């Protein structure tokens, strides 16, 4: 793989539109081209960085968080980190990050609900058998 590519080629290889790549550069997520002007080129490092950004987006992070993460700012200083507590039993409590998407929050709450139900009710012989 060549270590020198145009923006159009970088876009093609990464699957990210050229306009979005320029947007990332303006946001500080990605370095500018290695050379500027007529011979502006992008390196394999640019491609790797774009792949990393896609991966972090897939994990549910916003561009602002990704920019901080890639800049090496410690996570505890950058991530919005309120936490919800769900007290399920006297001896059980579950903590969930409070800045998740409503979709993810809903999924986790459904799981907690199911978990809480199982702890509340004595296990039936049938469910014990199924579990075994």
């Amino acid at each position, binding site marked *: 793989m060549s270590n020198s590519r*145009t*923006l*159009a080629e970088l*876009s093609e290889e990464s699957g*990210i*539109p*050229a*306009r*979005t790549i*320029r*947007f990332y*550069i*303006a946001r500080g997520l990605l370095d*500018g*081209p290695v050379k*500027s*002007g*007529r*011979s*502006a080129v992008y390196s394999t490092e640019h491609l790797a960085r774009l792949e990393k950004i896609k991966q972090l*987006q897939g994990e*549910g*992070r*916003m*561009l*602002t*968080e990704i920019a901080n993460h890639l800049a090496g700012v410690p996570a*505890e*200083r*950058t*991530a*919005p*980190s*309120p*936490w*919800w*507590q*769900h*007290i*399920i*039993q*006297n*001896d059980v*409590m579950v*903590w*969930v990050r*409070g*800045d998740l*998407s*409503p*979709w*993810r*929050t*809903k999924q986790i*709450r459904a799981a*907690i*609900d199911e978990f*809480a139900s199982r702890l*509340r009710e004595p296990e039936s012989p049938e469910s014990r058998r199924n579990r075994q």
Partner: protein
Amino acid sequence: MSTAASFTPLVAATGEALNLSMQRLWLTGQVLPAGARLTVQHVFRSEESQPLEVIYSFPLPRDAALRSFRITGEGFETHSELKETEEAVKAYEEGIARGSLSALARSYGDGVVNLTVGNIRPKETVTVHLELLCGVELHDDGFRFRFPFTLAPAYHPRAKAAVTASGEGELELPAGEFGDVILPRFREDASVLHQIGFELTMVSQLVLDEVGSPSHAVRVKQNGGRSVRVALAAEKDVPNRDLVLDARFQSVAPQVLAGRDKSGNGHFAAVVPSSSFGVPSEAPQRVVILLDRSGSMQGEPISQARKAIDACLGVLSEKDFFGLVAFDNEVSAFQPKLVPGTREFRDRAHAFLTHIEARGGTELVQGFVAAASLLEGADGDILILTDGQVAGTEKILADARSAGVRLHCLGIGSASQDRFLALLARETGGVSRFLTPRERVDLAAVDLFASVGRPLACGLKAGVNVQPEPPSFVYRGTPVLLFGETGDAPIELNWQGGQLSLPVAFSESDIAETVRLLQGARLITDWESRYPSADAWAPLEKRQQNRVAQRLLELSRTYQLASRAMSLVAVVKRAGDSPGELPKTRVVPVGMAQDTAFGAYFQPVTQGMPSPGALPSAAFTMNPATMTMTAMPTVSRAVLAPMLEGSQIFSRIREQFSRRRPPAEASAEAAGQAETAEDMLLALASRMDADGGMPGRDRESRAISTVVALLAFLSQGHTATSGVFRSHVARLVSFLKSLTGLSAHRQEVVAAAIELSNKGAAPTGDWMTLAGKPGDHWKEVERRLSRA
């Protein structure tokens, strides 16, 4: 009017100049009852030291499509070309790579457009004049034009939002579903943003009786009775709400705008008021009221919605059946099935409503699926009260169509989701209204409710080539809009049990082109609403997606209008273009929509919060009962307070899902706001019994209370055939007609009241105050009637 070059916005807090890449947005054009033909002027100015690329995001109005743009600057003027979107993007990128000034207008899902202008040179001013066509909200007696000056944040289950700078938030939507659309940055304070303004001409075949705006202070100048110029009264304004203009006709009659194109073909747009289709039946209603209780409805909208629902329920009879469902992330139904409109069930529905609080997200599909289940597959209607602030609307529309129920929408908001709610109603056979939060939601709900479930006409057909197809149902108060081609013969309309002939008079103006473009914009909007993103289409047939894409291409080519399949692009080659130089990309910010709390969507980033592992276990006070699965995870303040002392986390958490009311607003309500005539009429309407009469201890007292209520409605201009409370008046009259067993003298009083309702007027006197007083009013009524 100031020029773009002289406009220097300052940050109020610091007095420093703000570097705005877009400085001005100015709206001009002509608004007709059939739609509007507009030009939006965007002035971009670079203060950068390198080439600049600006991205401006805006929502399309209802039934809108972009036609073309013209890009101008010092020494150049270039017009856009319409190309398939992939080709247009390629042409734009090639232009950018060559160092040429390039512009691209591309539509995405939900009717969001990105206007991207790249390679603006340092200190250069560039203006993009964008022409578009859009629809209006039609009423029998006028029309409402709405143009979005901002883009409201919208709920999506997988959206991410956060504060990214002081007073500025960002919203990101999943790329797999929404593509590479770039949303604006949302500023809490819009006062430092680009200036907006407008100067429009409103034209009608009928004499325009009134023109006004509930959103902006306007200057109105008559150009004859059928044409009015409307302009922003101030020199400029800020982009924090939609422009809303209302025009009211002096009379109600069909209008046919017709003209011939260059080939001699006749094109028309016909606006036919619902009154042309007869009077509604008195068939029992089967209606489910669906209330959006998401966080964005908090404050005046939800309190007015509660009052409105009470008043709507007041018009139901024991023969009617109703349901009541509230939704946010979760759905709560008043009853698991439809119930009769008896006093008992209406009182219980009222009690249910008092416990409804705004909270959570806007899971609209869950709401109308639950509402549809109450109808159990039988005929019926759903009336939705919502702000419609949701993303991924194409998927919601697909679900609504497959639900097979008629949805009527009452939208409430200062930034437009009008396009979506109009589609949601139309695509399911219903009607819609959209209000600003500062208008009376309750009165509009009562007005809309009166038409729900009782169509005036079904199976409407036109004798000429009409596209799109005429609506399946015609409802009182909402005209039918038809676009088509015709010769000299009248346009013949037929429906079950009726027919109508509309004469066509061809105009000498360029009306043929305008109505044809409006027709194209409407067809493109309809088909775009069936074009969800790749993610949303996954379970569906791929070939169906291809079919929709192909149809959009055909429509774009036929009407020469942009769509999601075809975009507008222009490249301006100039001396001194510097190939390969990377422009700096800037996204134009927009203001938060008026009455929308910034904190409702954007949560500040907190720093240095303790991790769960660091919590002191001794601080916990355990109670299994605190685990409740509501829309918000339950948090024990007692538990968290010791470790979060000094932080504002609780308020932030609450604000994430809910809007706070301004203190002034809350205190005004606490102090008891002045009761208007409409408030008093709503109270009367909500007290009506299921048989149409007012409550009372016996027949005599019910009779006189009903007479007084009837005269109160008449005194405020509401009759059995006109006004928001027409259904209520009709039911009061019906009750009075059914009365027997009164003394002859009192029967005469009742007959006189019925006669007055036929005339549509009450005798002079303060009937409102009398209606609000308890007691026996026979003598007072007799005295007033005898004087009349």
